[in-house]
């Protein structure tokens, strides 16, 4: 088998699917945008500038217009009502083509699918199409300074007014894309007298109202892309409510399942084509000079690279196996709940290993003319913590898996 075949995404496919894949692949090849001439972010978590945003919106729009987004969403909201499988194929081919990522990821992967589950018809009609077209960017307002892992402790208040509308006061943090967002999925407390979980509600909050202050935060890489958002009596219409009042925690858990890759239905597939990362690692190993030659010739590094390859392949196989219920009979939720945990830690070890192999060359930073791959690897290693912390820290996810999948007693 050639290298390109070895790292491909899927098992043997029915003819129609294989044809669809080839069609997408050809389109990507023909339409992938050229290098814009300025630094692009590594993922949607690091979008800083207007020009980055414009470029990425235009690209997502192009993919949508070509008919490759929202494939598994209903036609009446802008989708195509196809099986989820086709959307996954688009995601895989996007990654394979090394095309830019889809910038409205929070809308496509978390907000949209949640609205599809809990939204009224009016909400679906209004919200979903602009998610696909990237006309309206979404952000997520779950975490607070005092409620990071313990999301249910959120204290941001949504106070109901006489006319049924709400006023929001509070403080959200780690709000990726808030600076660009038209909408926020917001977890807020509507009933402070109710229990910790029962007092929460879930809203589709319009960011362009008065009383909203977005302050950029800077990541350890020096990059922006996430923010804190301060609400000072900000107004929100009655129909911003998603689901029922007091149902917020349940709705948020659904969102978290999408966020952790534990449920299907994202409008645009995640960029997780298999083989991509280890292939990049191999390229680093072949260029990384060690005392004994190149890292690719050093048995100690070879052993670690092989281990990562094994894990990457195991993750790829998870995607196949997750769709055969009988092969998950003993622990139906396991593969889905562990996906984000395993991937994020694998990814962290992989990017750290790349830095290790590169040695001093990995200590050069963005802007240095000799930096290897524009300092991609130390940057990727630092950014990898975004994934092991955000969307449920690895520590919290181990609790979740232990409790929900294995029935171990709750640690709290």
């Amino acid at each position, binding site marked *: 088998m050639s290298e390109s075949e070895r790292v491909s995404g899927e098992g043997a*496919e029915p003819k129609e699917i294989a044809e669809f894949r080839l069609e997408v692949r050809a389109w990507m090849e023909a339409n992938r945008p050229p290098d814009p001439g300025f630094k692009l972010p590594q993922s949607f978590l690091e979008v800083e500038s207007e020009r980055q945003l414009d470029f990425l919106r235009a690209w997502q729009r192009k993919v949508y217009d070509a008919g490759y987004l929202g494939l598994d969403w209903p036609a009446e909201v802008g989708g195509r009502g196809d099986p989820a499988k086709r959307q996954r194929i688009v995601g895989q081919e996007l990654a394979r083509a090394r095309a830019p990522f889809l910038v409205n990821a929070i809308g496509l992967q978390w907000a949209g699918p949640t609205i599809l589950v809990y939204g009224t018809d009016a909400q679906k009609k209004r919200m979903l199409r602009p998610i696909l077209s990237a006309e309206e960017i979404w952000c997520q307002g779950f975490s607070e300074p005092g409620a990071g892992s313990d999301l249910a402790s959120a204290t941001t208040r949504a106070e109901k007014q006489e006319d049924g509308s709400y006023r929001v006061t509070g403080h959200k943090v780690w709000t990726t894309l808030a600076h660009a967002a038209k909408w926020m999925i917001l977890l807020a407390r509507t009933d402070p007298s109710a229990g910790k979980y029962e007092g929460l509600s879930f809203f589709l909050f319009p960011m362009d109202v008065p009383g909203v202050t977005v302050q950029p935060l800077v990541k350890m890489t020096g990059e922006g892309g996430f923010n804190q958002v301060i609400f000072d009596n900000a107004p929100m219409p009655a129909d911003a409510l998603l689901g029922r009042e007091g149902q917020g925690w349940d709705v948020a858990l659904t969102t978290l399942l999408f966020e952790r890759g534990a449920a299907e239905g994202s409008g645009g597939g995640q960029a997780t084509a298999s083989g991509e990362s280890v292939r990049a690692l*191999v390229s680093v*190993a072949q260029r990384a000079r060690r005392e004994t030659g190149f890292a690719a010739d050093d048995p100690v590094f070879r052993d670690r690279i092989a281990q990562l390859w094994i894990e990457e392949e*195991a993750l790829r196989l998870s995607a196949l196996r997750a769709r055969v219920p*009988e092969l998950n009979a003993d622990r139906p939720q396991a593969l889905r709940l562990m996906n984000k945990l395993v991937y994020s830690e694998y990814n962290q070890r992989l990017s750290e290993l790349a830095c290790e192999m590169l040695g001093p060359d990995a200590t050069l930073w963005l802007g240095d003319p000799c930096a290897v791959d524009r300092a991609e690897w130390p940057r990727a290693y630092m950014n990898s913590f975004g994934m092991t912390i955000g969307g449920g820290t690895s*520590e919290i996810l181990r609790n979740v898996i232990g409790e929900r*999948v294995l029935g171990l*007693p709750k640690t709290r």
Partner: protein
Amino acid sequence: MTRIPTNFGFTEEHEMLRQEARRLFAERCPISEVRRLADDALGFDPGLWKELGSLGWAGLATGEQYGGAGLGFLPLALLLEEMGRRLVPSPYLASLLASFAIDAGGSSTQRARWLPEIASGTRIGTLALYEPAGGFEAENVRATAEPAEGGFVLRGQKRFVLAGASADCLVVPCREPSGEVSLFVVDLPARGVTVQGEIGVDPTRRTARVALDGVHVACEARLDGSGAAALERTHARGFVALAAEMVGAADAALVMTRDYAIARKQFGRQIGFFQAVKHPIVDVMIGVELARNHVLGAAAAFDHTPHAAEIPARMAKALASDVFATAVRKGVQLHGGYGFTIDCDMHLYFKRALWSRATLGDGPHHRRRLAAALLDRDAAVAV
């Protein structure tokens, strides 16, 4: 592009087999029976062995033309996982290796001669894997086959021969004067063959030293195909068969530890409350599930893309080896003082893990080959 089916080729028939296997081994091989057989001279239950034969499971993957069920590798992996879960002491794996070898190296005449009896469970086969100098690959073979009147004379020492003391038929790699390795099938007992049971760390798995002291075999006893190639194919299948068993056993060790973490209280709490107990259990579960992915993937590869199965097979054995080792290490540790005694069943899994990791290549062994396939242009392994 060469790909396995997206559902691994899994069918309802496979599911029925899996359930039936789980039921049968739960009933016929509870841990009390494993303990009984651990002290038994023979080391397995001939009744259960006979039953596996009559269920058609001894020849599950053997072609129908040779008396097997011809169901392929995937159901075999599912069956082996269930055997591993119960640590079923059995010559099953031994006989399987022999049938893989005869299937890989034999002419159709030779297959027809030996496979049906193995597939029916009438005869127990085995493959001589190791020699005193170590290694199981063809290049490690030092036993010799000298041409002699009407056949060959075999000489050499073999070790760690699975079910060696029970086998009716031994497939043995020997080096011919040309330097080539060939596989010979020796019906046992045979003059010149001495079988001595080894005292192994794992009492649920019996092995033997086999001395070949001038053993005369007929020409037809030499399998027609290249011995080296046949061994390679056999080994790859062996990696996955053993990995499947290991995944089942690791899963059982995990469940046992999980159950203990729920039942046992200290400091007024179930110990599974404590993350120092909970998180290692979760990590073991993750490892078991990932290793299971590889077993399924590799099994499907043998069924659908056999020319591209070596890498998945090595991945399965490498990961299963590490995961099983971790599962029992944590298993003993988290059971505390009780886990350290012979009263706790964990030690049986612990010993099986030691044996299984060491046999047919461990993590470092297979990762070395995988790295070559990934990193070296002129890798010998087909990727």
